């Protein structure tokens, strides 16, 4: 069944601790899950009048040990007139 991992979220509108976790069978699966979470949230939050934003997911194992971190950054800038 794999091990249980917890995905804590940090972004502009506050932090969200994961107190349920999900079973993952490999580190590759954890990495895919982090990518999925980041892109899911980006689709909703970077499209609401945001010109920049950072979303971070920190992954903990069952013992509370931080094992990895994933970050997605968005920025939009108007270029100066030539």
């Amino acid at each position, binding site marked *: 069944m794999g091990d249980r991992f917890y995905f804590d979220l940090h972004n502009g*509108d506050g932090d*969200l601790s994961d107190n349920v976790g999900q079973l993952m069978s490999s580190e590759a699966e954890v990495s895919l899950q982090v990518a999925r*979470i980041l892109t*899911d*949230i980006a689709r*909703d939050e970077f*499209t609401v009048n945001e010109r920049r934003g950072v979303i971070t997911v920190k992954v903990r194992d069952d013992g509370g040990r931080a094992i990895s971190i994933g970050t997605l950054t968005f920025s939009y800038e108007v270029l100066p007139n030539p």
Partner: protein
Amino acid sequence: MIEPLLMNLQSRDVVTDEETDRLRDTIKIGRTFAPGEDIVSEGERPTYSTLMVDGLSARYKQMADGTRQFTALQVPGDFVDLHAFLLHKLDHGIVALSPCRVAFADHTELRRLTETMPHLTRLLWLNTIVDAAINREWIASMGRRSKQAHIAHLICELYVRLRTVGKVDGWSFQLALTQAELADVVGISLVHANKTLQALRRQEAFAWDARTVTIKDWPRLCEIAGFDQTYLSLRVEPR
């Protein structure tokens, strides 16, 4: 036993006594399914169609990477697979999400019904058309609504569908859906589902605790969702 189906049909047209009797003759006592059990599995060729009498089930596609997408939810009064009558082989599974009580309509008897009762046939056809209308709204939600709007839309739709079959208590209804299952309905990660629900809670349009949803501000919820119930065709008129 088929009362929810009758209420469903009666919300769109008048159902005669003869038609009611015929439905009672056609749809027979079924069985119960436990949560997590397949009511129909992908690839099966059922010789009967299954009516949800009590409970909640979902159509699903199992993806190659192990993830799962729910493509429809069935509440009491819905056929889980009336389309199997003509499709024969099912290209998706149907899983019980709560304890489900179902009844069966044998395809031979359904065929006989379609050959002798044209108006009742049209009403059953309408049922599958409303299923398709719901699918269209779900595609619009999936592609174009924010996830807050998507979840709010789902809550609005389920409320109206359950009210039609007498399964609401004022502004409350039972929703046996875990957050992981909700994530599989709206096609997002569990973490994003939790985050979106938390954001929705702050807007106080509805509460969802211990499998009970209570709508606190219907106009506000409809506004968040962009919900217009026209697609459910809940008008009694000749069909």
